[in-house]
């Protein structure tokens, strides 16, 4: 059975479920909004300061919001024991992983698109560097969070404290990517340095962790 067809099947199912329940989108959106607004009131930064700290605040808000969504994305498969049916099906396990990762990626991208205008207003932001590079960093950074998050949330779904386990595993692993995202974003916002090295780091990180996740996912899925 072709991988592409399986990915499309899982993706369509996840998008349909999310469209009907809106569980992940709602919780992610409100969580990210809350963090952005609370930090804006807490620091009340000037335009210059905003450019220096906005990258960090934005990505941390998204990291926390993503965790909320990731926990829910696999919880769907646990409800009614559906995961057992998926384990029995002969479709390639990586199709399930990629379908879910792409679905999560799209959810986070939608939230980013909705949060960005609020972020710009609250932090009085104006990009000095290249906006195209900012979009590239957003895509690479989001994939880095989501690919690891989807993998590690699959690992932690059968643990007793899965909501706690996921951030405990994901945060340390995501640190290099988070560093790349924050510094690349800050460089682009301030226009002081080229973010190229950080973008390269994100590309390498994405490729390495996507490959590792694909190699190991079947073992995670079939583990008791």
């Amino acid at each position: 059975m072709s991988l592409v067809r399986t990915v499309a099947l899982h993706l369509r199912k996840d998008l349909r479920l999310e469209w009907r329940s809106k569980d992940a989108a709602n919780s992610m959106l409100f969580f990210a909004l809350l963090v952005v607004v609370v930090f804006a009131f807490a620091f009340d930064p000037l335009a210059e300061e905003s450019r220096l700290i906005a990258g960090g605040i934005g990505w941390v808000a998204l990291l926390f919001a993503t965790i909320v969504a990731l926990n829910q994305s696999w919880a769907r498969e646990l409800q009614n024991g559906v995961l057992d049916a998926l384990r029995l099906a002969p479709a390639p396990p990586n199709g399930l992983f990629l379908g879910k990762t792409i679905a999560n990626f799209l959810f986070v991208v939608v939230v980013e698109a909705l949060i960005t205008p609020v972020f710009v207003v609250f932090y009085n932001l104006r990009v000095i560097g290249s906006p195209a590079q900012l979009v590239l960093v957003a895509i690479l950074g989001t994939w880095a969070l989501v690919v690891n998050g989807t993998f590690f949330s699959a690992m932690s779904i059968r643990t007793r404290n899965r909501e706690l386990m996921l951030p405990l595993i994901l945060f340390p692993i995501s640190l290099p990517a988070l560093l790349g995202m924050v510094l690349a974003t800050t460089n682009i916002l301030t226009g002081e340095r080229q973010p190229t090295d950080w973008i390269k780091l994100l590309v390498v990180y994405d490729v390495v962790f996507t490959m590792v996740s694909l190699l190991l996912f079947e073992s995670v899925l079939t583990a008791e």
Partner: protein
Amino acid sequence: MLDGVSKLFGRFAALHDLSAILVSGQLYGLLGENGAGKTTLLRIIAGLSRPSRGSVRVLGSPDVRGVTARIGYMAHSNLLYDELTARENLEYFSGLYGSRPKAGSEELLSLVGLGNVDRNRRVSQYSQGMKQRLALARAMISSPDLLLLDEPFSNVDAKSIAAMAALLGQLRDRGATVIVITHQVEALAAVADEWITLHAGTIVKRESGSRRSSASQQAATPRGVEL
């Protein structure tokens, strides 16, 4: 074939040195009190759980994972997405079985008596009995050679139970092996070929079912160890 199968959860043995040969094309009723190990046994046969000791050979293969496409499994939980409709569920799971010959979702829904239910009704709006019947349809989606059912008659009304049991009998007559965990012996009495009773993780009794026609005896000729 189950050969010396044990399953340990910590120090607790859910199954203890269990051996059995089950013949293809038969309908087995699996009996036993709660905690006897019935569900654990079914999960091991399905390849969802590995034995701590011993070996299992399913559909002629020692690698159960390699033949899961030929196994239909219905668990305690219904293995369905609540937010999808019956047809969406069946079509999704059918898609996961690729090129394997499959029953159509309309045909399956008719078989389990759900053909006339509103197409847009989500599974979350179904009664427990309807969910059970839909779960059976899902388990049959890949026209399985081995059908494993864990208490399929729970919360199902008497008329539907009779229809489900007759359906299982038909599947067996077409050559499928069916293993059913149930506490409702009378529900399967008309179609079961053999009853297997478990106690404390081991088989304590095997007895023929009431239905022992000569035709089914012939159909039950062992093909090696097929289960």
